[in-house]
């Protein structure tokens, strides 16, 4: 996809300034690229390499370690169903199976309309509300099959846009860090 746009290059510069070492900004910049495009594309990774004085291989080598960085385009909504021990006990696998039938895709598959990507994930730290899932890293707990279908309907009809932004938008508080202001003496 694309290189980082000018607004995000500006944010990248501010993010780099938070760290004693440029490379520390690598994960934050990969998040920034994912926020822009919904995934981390090759052009963006090359651009990040330029910004941090790294080789593209160093950027890809790091990005590929982390499951949250999707290096291929995925759906608008990433549905992450937990099946780890607490969810297993409360029907996590049954929920995943229902999700597969309901969306018509296997884990890591994307629906033909490009709206949903389904994945099976490890513990999300929401275990008192098992079985749980996340949509674009927003939590939904004690999810029954009916809840799941309602949730997908709400997402399709854009009723949850305030709560669940499109994939890649993680932390919506994107103001510059106050530290920079303090250091400038402003």
């Amino acid at each position, binding site marked *: 996809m694309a290189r980082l746009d000018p607004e995000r290059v500006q944010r990248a510069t501010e993010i780099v300034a938070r760290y004693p070492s440029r490379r520390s900004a690598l994960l934050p910049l990969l998040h920034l690229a994912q926020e822009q495009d919904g995934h981390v594309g090759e052009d963006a990774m090359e651009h990040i390499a330029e910004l941090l004085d790294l080789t593209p291989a160093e950027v890809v080598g790091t990005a590929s370690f982390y*499951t949250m960085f999707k290096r291929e385009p995925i759906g608008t909504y990433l549905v992450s169903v937990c099946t780890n021990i607490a969810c297993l006990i409360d029907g996590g696998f049954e929920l995943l199976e229902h999700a597969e039938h309901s969306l018509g895709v296997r884990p890591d598959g994307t629906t033909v309309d490009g709206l949903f990507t389904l994945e099976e994930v490890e513990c999300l730290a929401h*275990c008192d509300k098992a079985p749980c899932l996340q949509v674009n890293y927003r939590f939904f707990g004690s999810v029954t099959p009916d809840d799941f279908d309602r949730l997908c309907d709400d997402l399709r009809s854009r009723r949850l846009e305030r709560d669940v932004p499109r994939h890649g938008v993680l932390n919506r508080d994107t103001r510059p860090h106050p530290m920079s202001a303090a250091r400038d003496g402003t």
Partner: protein
Amino acid sequence: MAFRGAPDILFSRMGFDDSHTVDRYVRTGGYEALPIALKRSPEELVEEVKISGLRGRGGAGFSAGMKWSFLPADIFPRYLVVNGDEGEPATFKDHQLIERDPHQLIEGTAIAAYALKCSLAFLYIRGEFALGLERLTQAVAEAYARGHLGRDIFRSGFELDIVVHAGAGAYICGEETALLDSLEGHRGEPRIRPPFPAVKGLYQKPTVVNNVETLSNLPWIVKHGGAAYAALGNDKSTGTRIWSLSGHVNRPGNYETELATVTFRDLFFDPELGGGIRGGDEVKAFVPGGASAPWFGPDQLDCPLDLDEVQRRGSMLGSGSVVVMNEHTCAVRAAWRITKFFAHESCGKCTPCREGGSWLEKVLKRIELGAGREEDLDLLLDVCDNLAPGLSWPPGQTTICVLGPSIPSSIYTSIRMFRDEYLTHVKEGGCPFR
């Protein structure tokens, strides 16, 4: 009040919907501890934390004051890194502390940074905690705006910057040296020790890595004194702690109780805590401290929630997550799913973990699916013994970090407790629970 009259040290604001806001925090005693701390010397604060007996809440249970005192005296800069990469299966306490009381964590971080004489701290937060990241970022901005962070905090001359840093989905980054590599912009692979982070940590500078819950205790300790904290619990397990309780209990949830004075039976059955087993079923087994911990059977229900006593009995309280399984739970399936987790999360650096984990997962899966053989049990135990020689706790070490040697825990304990169940899978060609 927390359970049985103990004070709510960590969860005092959980009754408020707006517990994450600075207004609520200040109205409930927040940011009162930091100015008290800043009037004392850093050395006095380290001493106070030593007196409190506070032990790390991330899993290892190491003395916090001791960890702090390992920093070499005259090397600067030095860094404080807060481990908020909560990923141990069935642990969900830091998630709640970050989302619901971010200012308590910030105040605790500031107190620790002052005691450690460092002016830059990083909050490494699990990437999947989108709401937590937003609230913490917002809270940091509010703390700056009120003069609680930045330059000349409370006119003490002390300067501190806090940077919120999002992880990106890797359990191993909860291991402190892997976390440091990740924070430096690398793949999260654990480092060989020594040197320990206290000597050469972030950017090869002296570094302390503390867990979210550990630091969230500090405002209370500064306000009430280390001795008051140490008066709770017993001599080695002091203060209160949050238990992440899940599985077949009526009331799963996070519960704060005094350490050592409460037993697993209390935690599962007390009406204020777990409220008993659903449907009146029996406890078949339970995970006492995270997926890395060896399982306990019902014979250990009266074991107190005391770090050393649980270790003496062959397991650990670890990250404080307790999973209860009733008699209808398939032990093979549970052990397989936990092993699948470790196989997925192995960083791949050390051979025993990378290879052992995935082969153990495959063998367990074939037993669960009915294609197992009787000799698979010996095979499992043999591979386990290669990962953690001796099959005991704490495990024998064969790898750089403890992830690999933790894989056998659920396998060898479930085979010891439920060997017949494994054999039934083999003989009947499938899972008897399905």
